[in-house]
């Protein structure tokens, strides 16, 4: 859905793990799933500290 977020003008966009579980992945073990979630949150926090001039997509899982 990141192209939609870009189109509507969201400034900082982190590509996450999917529409039905943006911060999880049911195919992973509980431990790996939480690690995935932490990586996405960390990426979002770094994005907040990053200067952007236009809608910008940060990384992806």
């Amino acid at each position, binding site marked *: 859905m990141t192209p939609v977020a870009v*189109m509507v003008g969201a*400034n900082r966009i982190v590509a996450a793990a999917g529409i*039905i*579980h943006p911060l999880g992945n049911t195919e992973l073990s509980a431990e790996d799933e*939480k690690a995935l979630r932490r990586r996405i*949150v960390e990426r979002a926090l770094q994005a*907040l500290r990053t*200067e952007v001039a236009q809608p910008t997509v940060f990384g992806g899982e």
Partner: protein
Amino acid sequence: MESVRVVCYLNQFFGQLGGEDKAGVGPQIVKGPVGPARAVEQALGGAGTVVATVRCGDNYVAEQTERAIAEMLALVVAERPGLVVAGPAFLAGRYGIACGALCAAVQAALGIPAVTGMHVENPGVDLYRRQVYIVQTGAEAARMLEDVQKIVALGLKLVRGEPLGAPAVEGYFARGVTRHTVVEHNAAERAVAMLTAKLAGQPFASEVPLPDFPRIPAPRLLKTLAGATIALVTDGGFVPQGNPDGIEPLNATRYGAYSIEGKSGLDASQYDNVHRGYDTTYVKQDPHRLLPVDVAREMEQQGAIGKLHDTVYSTTGVATTLAHSARMGREIAEQLRAAGVDAVILTST
């Protein structure tokens, strides 16, 4: 054709009651035209007469809209009008919403045309353009007479049942109505003409205008993460069991604020998900797949972020109108700012 009985509606300012100090005044009616209603009378020429002017304070309408509109409607009905002209409201938000609401109510109750005028950025435009003919005006009253003439011309056409031209021709905001028309050139020819105009740097108009999303400047988090308060917000339909705020499963107009104070995570048995735009099975099994309270709390405890804000906000983002999204976003942002939050992670599905 017999002279049309016209009732005008004005706010306290244009109705010459006073400024903000009179914004709480309830509806009242005066015989004949007042203020801009005189311009309406003038624009009508011999076609009609302003029989009465209803005026009401902006705050009175904004704070109890349903009641205020019902009271004004009763005043309008008593005058047996053939046309109602509200405003114009220009860029005044409360006034614009009141004009739209009254016009919609008049049309529904009396089955007569009701027209108004606003600036394109008036919130009343997006809220009422589909129900009500809203003429595009300037931001201020500088060209009142000209704007009123357009409103009255449109109103008289509606009264007489004359066919209306396209929104751009008549000067009203598109209502989302599709109408068959016969055009001289087929779609391929029009598309090529548009392309050649574009290549030549000449003006052209798309036949399918896209919604205009304003660019929002992006402030950067200047504090270090270790000193910052971070809030979590979602449009993924997260709610406590029983959905206490009645957040709609789609086309949302409401959002909820839920405390996570002292919680290391979200207990799935205490939460539900009302979003009807995706398969919510997995986020119901574990709400962290939508709202990462567990890892955010850990990062707070480890000092990676200063503080995780005690309240999370949630709504459903599916078929939600741009107007309601913008309003809810603004309200949530105001509350977060008042609570000293420095930055937000909004998770979306």
